[in-house]
């Protein structure tokens, strides 16, 4: 059962991420990306990470992609496509190079699968006992308190940056 859902969501995620790359219109790419995020949430669910799955949809598919879509829709990127011609070749090489680098970075992880799996501090049974959310919350607000508070400063910096640059243009 789990394997079935894994291949379903994994396959759909792969297919839609291909669409992200190969569709011509920017808006279509964004929609495909939203769908990819949705499928990733399905994968998180299979892992038993309910909270993370919901946040994946809520934040990635439901918030960050809204900004993407706003930028694409409101800047009217369709018209921009024509200008792209120059430097296209260089970009392609750069993209290919980046892809190879990412692959080389990920390949060791893939190879590591052969090693014996070490059981972590939080095996699925222990997580199931109280639920994903409660564990995240307990750890986040005790052991990882400092990163949590620092995150607020990071978010503050993001607000200030966004408002500053947007208002400078007005």
């Amino acid at each position, binding site marked *: *059962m*789990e394997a079935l*859902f894994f291949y379903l969501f994994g396959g759909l995620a792969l297919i839609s991420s291909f669409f992200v790359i190969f569709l011509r219109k920017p808006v279509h790419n964004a929609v495909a990306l939203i769908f990819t995020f949705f499928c990733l949430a399905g994968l998180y*669910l*299979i892992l*038993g990470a*309910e*909270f993370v799955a919901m*946040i994946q949809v*809520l*934040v990635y598919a*439901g*918030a*960050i992609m*809204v*900004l993407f879509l*706003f*930028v694409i*829709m*409101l*800047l*009217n990127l*369709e018209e921009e496509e024509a200008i792209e011609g120059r430097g296209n070749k260089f970009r392609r090489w750069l993209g290919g190079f980046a892809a190879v680098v990412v692959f080389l970075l990920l390949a060791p992880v893939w190879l590591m699968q052969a090693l014996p799996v070490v059981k972590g501090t939080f095996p699925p049974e222990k997580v*199931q006992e109280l639920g994903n*959310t*409660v564990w*995240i*919350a*307990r750890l*986040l*607000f005790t052991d990882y*308190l400092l990163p*949590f*508070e620092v*995150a*607020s*400063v990071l*978010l*503050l910096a*993001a*607000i*200030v940056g*966004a*408002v*500053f640059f*947007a*208002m400078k*243009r*007005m």
Partner: protein
Amino acid sequence: MPESYVPIFVFLVVNVAVAVLIIALSTYLVKRKPTAQKLMPYECGMDPFGTARKRFSVKFFVVAMLFIIFDIEAVFLYPWAVVFKDLKLFGLIEMVVFIAVLLLGLFYAWKKGALEWQ
């Protein structure tokens, strides 16, 4: 996968099937007789002029940015709310500090006029 999501998945499949059915019905059930006038986007009876996909005020981007940031605030707040009864006063202080820093940001956006619309 936690058991309870199987029914949700089935519900999703049924819903999508019905939506596809409805869309297909509306597309194929009735014969279409398109004419140029009929297909024209509505613009109070005049012929449309210019592009319908215009650029927008930068305000909307600021709103979207602020939305992402406060959405993340809310995401941090939910798990906190679940375990609040265990965290008690300590938890309250943690969250007040976190929220205060973010409200500072909201205040900045407010003073800068990012929340003003004419």
